[in-house]
């Protein structure tokens, strides 16, 4: 589904991603871990198409098209979804209006009519229930005054409704309380299917206990320096990053 080939990107003269290679197949969950500032969020942003980052080389093949040729909204229409590490507040737009527009823009791109109100309502209700979201939430402005945890839950709510093919969850676990983490993780698991794939960016094993990854990658200094199975995450939890980063630093210096 997704094949990233030697991706290099940065900001101004500062190269942040220094040659990323990653292949993700449908039905898979990949976890990306790594120290602060290693480039995890940057990778997520570049996949989603944030223009702030300059792509210096490489490809991001997504089901046969190079995402780098598409605008962020076109990527979204193709089924790329990013759950933001720091969801932003959008003044003036209610959650329901935002989600309605989001759904219908994607449908429009696919040549479909807007979703009938009834169907939309049913869907909103169903997903609110899935994620234990309280009533009254739909009429609030997008993320406006939301607590940290509420913002994260709102991200997964949108994911649940948009049913993307590729979801990138950037530290969705941070800021969630223990119960919320379970609810959100449970929601993500329910949405998993043979047709979609998930990238989970996290610092903690705890999330991976719920959302069990097929692969774990360690990102350091703009490169994936180690990949393994779910047991790699346990190892990192125990030993930290030093033992692999030192080795990598030697190699790249």
């Amino acid at each position, binding site marked *: 589904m997704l094949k990233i080939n030697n991706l290099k990107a940065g900001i101004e003269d500062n190269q942040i991603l220094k040659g990323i290679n990653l292949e993700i197949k449908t039905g898979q969950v990949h976890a990306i871990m790594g120290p602060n500032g290693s480039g995890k969020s940057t990778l997520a942003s570049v996949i*989603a*198409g944030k223009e702030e980052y300059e792509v210096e080389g490489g490809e991001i093949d997504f089901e046969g098209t190079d995402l780098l040729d598409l605008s*962020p909204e076109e*990527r979204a229409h193709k089924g790329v979804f990013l759950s*933001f590490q720091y969801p932003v507040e*959008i003044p*003036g*737009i209610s959650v329901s209006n935002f989600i309605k527009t*989001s759904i219908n823009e994607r449908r429009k791109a696919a040549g479909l009519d807007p979703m009938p109100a009834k169907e939309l309502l049913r869907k909103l209700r169903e997903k609110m229930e899935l994620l234990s979201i309280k009533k009254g939430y739909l009429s609030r402005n997008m993320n406006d005054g939301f607590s940290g945890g509420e913002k994260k839950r709102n991200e997964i709510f949108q994911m649940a409704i*948009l049913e993307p093919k590729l979801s990138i969850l950037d530290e969705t676990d941070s800021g969630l309380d223990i119960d919320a983490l379970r609810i959100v993780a449970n929601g993500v698991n329910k949405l998993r299917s043979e047709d979609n794939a998930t990238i989970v960016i996290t610092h903690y094993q705890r999330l991976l206990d719920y959302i069990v990854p097929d692969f774990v990658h360690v990102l350091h200094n703009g490169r994936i320096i180690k990949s393994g199975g779910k047991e790699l995450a346990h190892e990192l939890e125990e030993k930290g990053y030093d033992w692999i980063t030192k080795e990598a630093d030697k190699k790249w210096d």
Partner: protein
Amino acid sequence: MIEKKQLSEDKLLEKVTTTEYKYGFTTDIESDTIPKGLSEDVVRIISAKKNEPQWMLDYRLKAYKAWIEMEEPEWANVSYAKPNYQDIIYYSAPKQKPVLDSLDDLDPEMKKMFDKLGISINEQNKLANVAVDIVMDSVSVATSFKEKLGDLGIIFCSISDAIQDHPKLVKKYLGTVVPARDNFFSALNSAVFSDGSFCYIPKGIKCPMELSTYFRINEAGTGQFERTLLIADEGSQVSYLEGCTAPMRDENQLHAAVVELIAMDDADIKYSTVQNWYPGNAEGVGGVFNFVTKRGICYKNAKISWTQVETGSAVTWKYPSCILKGDNSIGEFFSVAVTNNFQQADTGTKMIHLGKNTKSTIIAKGISAGKSNGNYRGLVRIAKGATNSRNFSQCDSLLMGDKCGSHTFPYIEVKNNSSKIEHEATTSKIGEDQLFYCNQRGIGTEQAITLIVNGYCKDVLNQLPMEFAVEAQKLLEISLEGSVG
């Protein structure tokens, strides 16, 4: 050499024409424009051209004398090259004055302009409920639905006609809410105003249609000094719409209007404005200077509600205000003020509570984009006798990008402790992060801005009559096109 000759010829010509007017003003009223500049004679010429009675001339002359003693105000948070008041033509009439039986007889060029704005004449005709009085370059060229209103005793005409046909009403109320010497621009307006609208709603009458006036500046270098006087007699009701636009201009044009509203006991006036004067180009060249004095007075149980959507002008200086004189009277101010590129706005309201149990609401939404600067300036004054008065103010700013600015200057003076004042203010920003977030959810940038802006302005746009709200929404979109990213 040739240039020099040309110059002296021009001077000579100017001198000749000026002289001609100087001595011939009482008889020579045929010509379309008068020479540039302002003097006592110019004031006399304007008055004479309009065939005004002596009291009107006296009023103008008194205002003029006050004006020459006054200084142009500098306290507003705007900066601009002050107009040269001697370089402005103070009176100009359209080349011919067509008397139109219906709106269909309108100049096709003008029709085109209305179409561009989305307020085609055809549409207006369908909206049979709208009476349109079009002020083109200072003189009314079309008035409609007059008879229908006449049956109810409603007077809706140009202020020039009102001075001729209803001198008692004009004399009684003109300058009572905004005295000539109120400020520099009101004095100027009082001296030279060329035309505007007059409206009188008799006792107990509910005006059955929205009264609407479209203004435009047409001739280069012509200052516009509209004068509006609206009187709602006891227990009457009226909704008045004012909208304007100006075509492209390279030189700055001055617009200094005065609007006076009088709401007698139990009367209700709703005054809505969509202002779209030429804001200047993207480099900040040209554009209209809009220095407006708008004020209304409420007697017992009366209500005045100002709604404005301000998208145009290079510099805006405008504070629609309410004097809540009568007990239980209500003042409202709903405003959206957009500044883009190099536009500057200093706008807000004054709520002066004098009567008991008076209530005022202020909802001001500023949107700044480009390198513009938007300011809210508001005053809530609660006098000693205004017991149990209340004010609620909400002033929000929305910034697009990070090169623009916004400031809020809320002044509050309370002289009585049974009154209650609430003030809320927020600032939000639409930056790349917000837009990327929307993009990531499949919502394109232009659409995201439209959604955000409409949501943000909802409380104000909801106050506008339906067809105006649509137009205002369109204007907001147009004026913010390409403002971020």
